[in-house]
């Protein structure tokens, strides 16, 4: 009896132990070390402009919407759903009710709830953003909101006329200048994130410092050592806090990309972009090549023409220069980062772009045709052309690209061009001044993934920057109509037309390549690669290592 009892209890105990020792969930670590390349000038959502600040705003605050990391589609964040009126001019966003402002005291580590995030906060923030006194640099992206441009430029002075209104605590209504299918994406961008009125009124410019600030996003700011590091800790009152596994993010501020990569190789950073000089080595290394990934990057590198200055006031000359060099060879021999040759201004991933349409004409090197174009323009073999200069802002990378293209034009067109460079701020003044250089280098990165942010915002003759001093009525109409059309298929058609005029028929600028992001990530980090709005670290996981 005793023996049998013992045997049974032993079996029972063993059974319990074995079921308890079944496959456990993956053990997760709770902190991650990242590098933000530079000191963020501010974390004020209405004022943030650079990538570091924008990244931090994503983690500390909440936008009405966000961009899905894989598809770039606009998905809910603070707003759970939205609807538009039949005329396309009124948008209503319905906010979730469980988002709260918190105040974190780094000294005592106490988290105090300060009240719900409401539609009134959204209205306050948007009006503050457009207020000319705030001097937000991204206000222009929001000009689709009714009367916002007039308010921002001082034409009207009553903020009540701006097209944003809180209908009740959890419903906010936007009125737009014209129908715009891409508006929900813009409404969720960082500069429209709700901001807390109380600390702003109390602390002024210093409201963003740790200890003063109120935040509502997945993380809170614990430490901000200027130019040194930022430490963020998980917000326990974030509405999805139970799914946030990384509890502490340490942001180092290492400007020098080779130092940052050395830190990554030494295990001091978990994620790091690969400096272009190290690309070959990383791809060949047995360990690093597995950690390396080419992520999408919604940017295009291009040369602009001054369309009013000879010889580039002549369309044939512009076309000749555009097809007079080998983009793929530039990528293979100079850039080496898996970039892609560009044939349109807007890169792949932008709604409406024909960048990946095989039927859209390619801009490949065609020396014979280029020479013929020059001859037709009155410059056979390049004779008679005035002195031509490529201007770029001082940088080793831009210099190498310019030298390559200079060499190519000499070989393929028989034209010798000069190179000149200027320091960045001086360069911008030159490019946007009255004496824009004949050829100048610029890049454009998407603010939101829609062609409106590209062809219209950059090259429309009156509604855009128009650094290339170009005016084409057909292009302007296609770009403007593309914004207001509501049928996605029609919009794509209009934008394809606009791109063809811009990049191919008129060759008003030279698209060169679409950027990539070359990143190394440690194998124990499970991550996404966001092309817009900052990395969504609240969704990442770090395994124990």
């Amino acid at each position, binding site marked *: 009896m005793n023996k049998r009892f013992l045997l049974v209890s032993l079996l029972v105990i063993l059974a319990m132990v074995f079921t308890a020792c079944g496959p456990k969930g993956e053990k997760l670590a709770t902190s991650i070390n990242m590098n933000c390349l530079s000191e963020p000038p501010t974390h004020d959502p209405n004022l943030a402009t650079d990538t570091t600040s924008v990244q931090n705003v994503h983690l500390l605050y909440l936008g009405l919407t966000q961009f899905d990391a894989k598809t770039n589609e606009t998905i809910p964040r603070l707003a759970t759903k939205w609807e538009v009126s039949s005329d396309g001019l009124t948008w209503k966003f319905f906010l979730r009710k469980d988002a709260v402002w918190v105040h974190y005291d780094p000294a005592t580590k106490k988290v105090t709830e300060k009240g719900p995030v409401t539609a009134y906060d959204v209205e306050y923030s948007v009006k503050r953003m457009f207020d000319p006194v705030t001097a937000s640099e991204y206000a222009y992206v929001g000009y689709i909101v009714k009367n916002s441009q007039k308010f921002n*430029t001082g034409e009207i002075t009553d903020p009540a006329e701006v097209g944003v209104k809180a209908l009740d605590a959890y419903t906010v209504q936007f009125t737009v200048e014209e129908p715009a299918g891409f508006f929900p994406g813009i409404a969720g961008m960082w500069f429209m994130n709700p901001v807390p009125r109380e600390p702003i009124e109390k602390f002024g410019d210093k409201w963003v410092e740790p200890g003063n600030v109120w935040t509502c996003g997945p993380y809170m700011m614990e430490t901000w050592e200027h130019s040194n590091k930022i430490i963020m800790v998980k917000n326990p009152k974030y509405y999805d806090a139970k799914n946030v596994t990384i509890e502490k993010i340490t942001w180092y501020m290492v400007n020098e990309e080779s130092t940052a990569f050395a830190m990554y190789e030494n295990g001091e950073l978990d994620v790091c972009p690969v400096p272009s000089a190290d690309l070959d080595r990383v791809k060949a290394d047995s360990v690093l090549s597995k950690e390396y990934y080419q992520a999408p990057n919604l940017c295009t590198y291009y040369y602009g023409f001054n369309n009013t200055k000879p010889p580039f006031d002549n369309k044939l000359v512009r076309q000749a220069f555009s097809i007079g060099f080998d983009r793929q060879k530039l990528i293979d021999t100079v850039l080496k980062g898996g970039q892609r040759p560009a044939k349109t201004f807007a890169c792949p991933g932008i709604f409406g772009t024909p960048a990946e349409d095989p039927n859209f004409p390619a801009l490949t090197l065609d020396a014979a045709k280029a020479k013929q174009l020059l001859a037709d323009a009155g410059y056979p073999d390049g004779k008679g052309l005035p002195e031509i200069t490529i201007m770029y802002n001082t940088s080793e990378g831009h210099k190498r690209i310019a030298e390559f293209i200079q060499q190519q034009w000499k070989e393929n067109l028989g034209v010798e061009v000069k190179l000149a460079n200027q320091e960045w701020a001086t360069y911008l003044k030159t490019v946007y001044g009255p004496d824009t250089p004949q050829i100048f280098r610029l890049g454009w990165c998407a603010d939101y993934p829609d062609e409106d942010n590209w062809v219209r915002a950059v090259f429309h003759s009156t509604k855009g920057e128009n650094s290339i001093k170009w005016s084409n009525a057909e292009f302007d109409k296609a770009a403007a109509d593309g914004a207001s059309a509501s049928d996605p298929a029609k919009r794509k058609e209009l934008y394809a037309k606009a791109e063809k005029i811009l990049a191919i028929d008129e060759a008003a600028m030279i698209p060169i390549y679409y950027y990539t992001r070359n990143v190394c990530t440690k194998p124990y980090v499970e991550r996404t690669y966001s092309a817009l709005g900052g990395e969504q670290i609240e969704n990442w996981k770090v395994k124990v290592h």
Partner: protein
Amino acid sequence: MLRYIIRRLLWTIPVLLFISLVTFALVHAVPGGPFTREKPLPPEVEANMRRYYGMDKPLPQQYLQYVAKIVTKFDFGPSMQQRGRTVNEIFKAHLPISAQLGVLALLVALIIGVPLGIVSALKQNTGWDYLGMSVAVFGVSVPNIVLGPLLIWIFALGLGWFPVAGWGTPEKMVLPALALGVNSSAIIGRLTRASMLQVIREDYIRTARSKGLSERVVMIRHALKNAFIPVATILGPMFAALVTGTFVVEQIFAIPGMGKYFITSVTNRDYPVVMGTALLYAVFLVIANLAVDITYAFLDPRIRYT
């Protein structure tokens, strides 16, 4: 002596005024401004920002207001690039770090350079001399921008003795201090050697030896003290340069010092920071030179100030 010091200190004021005036004029003459952006701001927004920073007033008035604020409140103004931070706060946060690094680098330079120079001088034209001077040539020729990554590659990535970059713990201070100090140590070494060679041939050294003093006393108390005068001369500007921050080493080792601000303030056209850093450097230079001049009086009793 005291009158001399006070007089020198009083002279600092016109010097600083002159420097501030020249810097102000130069920085406003450069094209571009603090609000030049890749996507140009609407003119009204830019006008607002200019008004906020007092830049809509005529230049002479801006300059006078700037000087008045420094003299009355010791306020160097706001940073235009980093909203919510003033130049005073930038100094307070970053100058101590640069100073720490600079002092360490100077110590490294002296600890390596002076003995190197002495040994090379005493054992002139022997193997020690050639070794010492080769080290000096290496130190002078290899720039910071090469030495820094080299040190990281060998000692951090290779041997794993030190972290790659950053600031805050003693182990993070070693590599940057070395990278910064080696260059100066080479200069000090060569100068010490040349100076010592000259001094040990002097009559008073022979007298000291013939008095029966030990070689060590002769070298340290008599020779080195006089040989040190040229070295002290360069220590002044060297100290000022090291302590106010060196851009390259701070970049490579990600050290949150002042060095970066000297450069980035100009590219950002952050006028108050440009002025602040220029004046800071000037103050350090003036004080360092004064300290050097006073040291002369101790090194060489023949030098007297009235």
